[in-house]
């Protein structure tokens, strides 16, 4: 896939950083403000998609990237299940229990395991969307040869 002009590259470099930071902010403040793992993860994936579209990439690099994103999402969702299973042994002894201390409502470190779920789900969603996009792009590259 070919990249775009220098202006597009420069601008998207700047913008992608901002979008990325915004996605992280949305994920971390999921229990305080609107948004959360799903929205934030999709925004982070959007930043990566923007960079890939602007800069282009060879099929070989794309394949490395897709392996990375696929592994990342697997690990993230595995952590979600493990976190859910942990509460079988800690705290309330039920699947998906909220076993961490709740803290003071309204602060960043509160709501027990909810921020952790938000982070893992955010990574998973970003990885999954990026994997879907990269799989499509790689297929288009390889089949048009």
């Amino acid at each position: 896939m070919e990249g775009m002009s220098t202006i597009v590259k420069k601008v998207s470099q700047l913008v992608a950083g901002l979008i990325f930071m915004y996605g992280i902010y949305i994920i971390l403040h999921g229990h305080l403000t609107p948004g959360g793992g799903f929205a934030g993860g999709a925004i982070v994936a959007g930043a990566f998609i923007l960079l890939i579209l602007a800069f282009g990439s060879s099929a070989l690099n794309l394949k490395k990237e897709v392996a990375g994103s696929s592994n990342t999402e697997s690990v993230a969702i595995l952590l979600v299940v493990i976190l859910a299973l942990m509460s079988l042994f800690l705290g309330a002894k039920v699947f998906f229990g909220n076993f961490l201390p709740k803290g003071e409502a309204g602060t960043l470190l509160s709501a027990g395991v909810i921020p952790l779920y938000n982070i893992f789900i955010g990574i998973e969603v970003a990885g999954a969307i990026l994997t879907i996009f990269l799989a499509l792009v790689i297929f288009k590259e390889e089949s048009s040869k």
Partner: protein
Amino acid sequence: MELQISIILGFMIIGAIYALHAKDLLSAVIAMGIVGYGLVICFLLLKAPDLAIVQIVVETITLVIMVAVVLDSTREEEKVPFDRTSLVNTLVAFVVFAGLFYFFLHAIEDLNPLGKHTLGMAESYVIGALEHTGSVNLVTGVLFDFRAYDTLGEAVILYTAALGALTLLRMKGKKTD
């Protein structure tokens, strides 16, 4: 409230009909964007900011994916010849749809009108939610605590779709090909 949403819905319906009848596939995809972004405005009016954020991002990504698929294709949709059978089919479809519409009208007659909803199961998701989950955002509280199991399923669905796309888009299906 009802009026504003009705107007936006009117635009969404027009967009949807255009999307189905557009000759060029790219304009069809973009017309679907009208429907999707119209939905975002409705969500904002209906006090659902979480949904608005998710919908706007997901809609954008869906559009990117769809445009990537459509872009270097032929894009022109081939003409459906309009003969007697298709006329009969359309008429039958409209009669059935009118019947369904009438049925739906009767089915929802006795239900709560817009804005008069009362909380049932969700009452405890709102009252005392802060003590239960500690999450200020009630939707996040429902998603990741009261109904976290649903959220696991949802994440698994996205994971499955990514794995499925990866599987379906590999070059060779069998080793001997």
